[in-house]
């Protein structure tokens, strides 16, 4: 089926070429990072994880959100999602691949990455994260590819795929839970040390992932003859609505616990993020925009008229995605380090090479997504 990725229009090839150029530029910056070390990034002894690990965290959510189309279709036999489950799964494949790459570019000595396998350490969350992410990648590739091949041949998918699909459901939850545990189990990092971190992650993931899927569905309808269907898109919109409400609610819970208890450690990071701490406020505009976007998106989503109108729905989906990217792909990871264990404040900004490497990994993800969607859409156009 992969051969279908080689037949495309001029604009398809132009897009691929653009992605390859970005990837090339990022590879150059990564070579620079390999030679000179991670000093070329904006990270330091106080903020020791930056944009890379924040992207990992956000994208694990996007990957896990595939389960939001898999559950209705395979557990509840919701037919409208039949057309888009494969799109959800391919999105997961692309997102998990990016997660893996973000971990690797963040390693100080990537040449020793195999130590993770040579010295398995069950008490380490990163060890489990590696296992669940890789397994999730394999599950989604195997499932989506087999289901799509079967669709192409107009036969039902092989019987052994079904148990894998059922396995992929709790597995999706596990990848984001384990990723939350990377943070939620660390003493002394008050912003992260919260029992609801894993559900908070899942809440924002199930809003951000399906938002992206709505946008992709609308895009697919525009550029191809395959229509994911109005009903499927509307159902996704409802999922995004509920998940976004949950996500905002969870952030509210964090605010209550911190500000009602008045425990300084719990207040500091939230203070830094939304109001500024001791004159340091680099992330405040970002976080306020994030909050504003979330509220605007929620208004658009809750109101039936604007939710049903696909133009305003597209806007709401984009706002949701951007808002949650800021909240999780920027604020949550960075502010965990602010203030530092000595209650000194160091701020962080990514450097140009760091941004370029980040863009390049997103470009790799988009390239994988483009190729897989091209294959899926070609098959679906043929079948139609």
């Amino acid at each position, binding site marked *: 089926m992969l051969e279908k990725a080689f037949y495309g229009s001029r604009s398809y090839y132009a897009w691929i070429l653009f992605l390859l150029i970005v990837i090339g530029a990022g590879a150059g910056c990564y070579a620079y990072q390999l030679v000179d070390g991670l000093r070329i990034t904006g990270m330091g*002894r106080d903020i020791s994880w930056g944009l890379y690990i924040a992207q990992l965290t956000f994208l694990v959510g996007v990957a896990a959100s595939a389960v939001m189309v898999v559950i209705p279709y395979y557990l509840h036999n919701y037919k409208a999602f039949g057309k888009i489950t494969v799109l959800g799964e391919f999105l997961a494949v692309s997102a998990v691949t990016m997660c893996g790459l973000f971990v690797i570019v963040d390693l100080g000595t990537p040449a020793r990455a195999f130590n993770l396998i040579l010295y398995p350490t069950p008490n380490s969350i990163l060890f489990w994260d590696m296992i669940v992410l890789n397994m999730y990648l394999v599950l989604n590739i195997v499932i989506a590819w087999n289901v799509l091949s079967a669709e192409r041949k107009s036969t039902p998918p092989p019987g052994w795929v079904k148990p894998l699909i059922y396995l992929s459901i709790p597995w999706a939850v596990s990848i984001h839970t384990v990723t939350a545990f990377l943070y939620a189990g660390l003493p002394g990092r008050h912003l992260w040390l919260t029992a609801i971190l894993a559900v908070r992650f899942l809440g924002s993931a199930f809003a951000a992932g399906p938002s992206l899927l709505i946008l992709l569905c609308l895009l697919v309808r525009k550029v191809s003859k395959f229509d994911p269907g109005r009903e499927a898109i509307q159902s996704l919109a409802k999922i995004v609505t509920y998940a976004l409400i949950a996500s905002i609610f969870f952030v509210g819970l964090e605010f209550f616990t911190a500000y009602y208890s008045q425990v300084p450690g719990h207040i500091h990071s939230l203070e830094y993020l939304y109001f500024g701490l001791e004159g340091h406020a680099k992330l405040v505009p970002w976080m306020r925009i994030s909050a504003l976007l979330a509220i605007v998106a929620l208004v658009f989503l809750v109101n039936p008229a604007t939710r049903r109108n696909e133009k305003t729905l597209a806007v709401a989906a984009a706002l949701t995605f951007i808002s949650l990217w800021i909240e999780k792909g920027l604020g949550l990871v960075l502010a965990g380090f602010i203030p530092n264990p*000595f209650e000194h404040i160091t701020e962080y900004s990514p450097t140009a090479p760091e941004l370029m490497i980040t863009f390049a990994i997103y470009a790799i993800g988009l390239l994988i997504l483009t190729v897989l969607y091209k294959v899926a859409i070609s098959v679906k156009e043929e079948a139609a």
Partner: protein
Amino acid sequence: MMKSRRSFLKISGACLLGLGVKPVLNAFAQAERMEIAPNPNALRAGRWALVVDITKCRDDCTDCINACNRAHNIPDLGRTKEEVKWIWNESYEHAFPGVEHEFVEERVKHQPFMVLCNHCDNPPCVRVCPVQATWKREDGIVMMDFHRCIGCRCCMAACPYGSRSFNWTDPRPYIPEGRMNPDFPTRTKGVVEKCNFCVERLAKGLQPACVESCSSGVLTFGDLDDPNSEVRKVLGERYSIQRKPELGTRPRVYYIL
């Protein structure tokens, strides 16, 4: 065709299994080949600890920091975000956040506090390390293996004391001229490091470099498990505090104010 694919899969499976078995075989091979002898001079303890008597510490003195920097080839990167530190000074309010208050005795308020790895009895950094590059030795020292570290920096996020430094770049060019200690390795870029309670000196029967360098009697190093040890005596006689004891890490560096 089917048959050959089958056998291919079988062979692949066997190969994978072989890879899994290899470490076990290696262990046997090692046991057969290598022999080691205990070092009679080494200092031993059940649980090493350090007591810092801040009342004896002189404000302008940095002897312990200098001695440590020399002993361990610590690069001088200036006060940059990439700084590497094993021992350094913090003020009271920063060393003990949450404990300070505005009416604290002037002497304490302006007194530099030497801070370092606490060699926790229950170290979070060890818990999170995915490759066992850091672990707690039987004598309580939280040790680093620079050869094993992959530089994921989980330990830096996990350490509630900010005691861990990462080598954001190759440190060697930043080791001051003529200060290289050939007996201790420098580090490579991309690994984490921290105070090791001078295990390399204890193995030779020497006290840690900081303790040896201190002429004011601020530092007492010894075995908590030995009721007659100097540290137990000091701790038994004077009131001491630890950094962030509420986190359950059980630090092994005690401060007497």
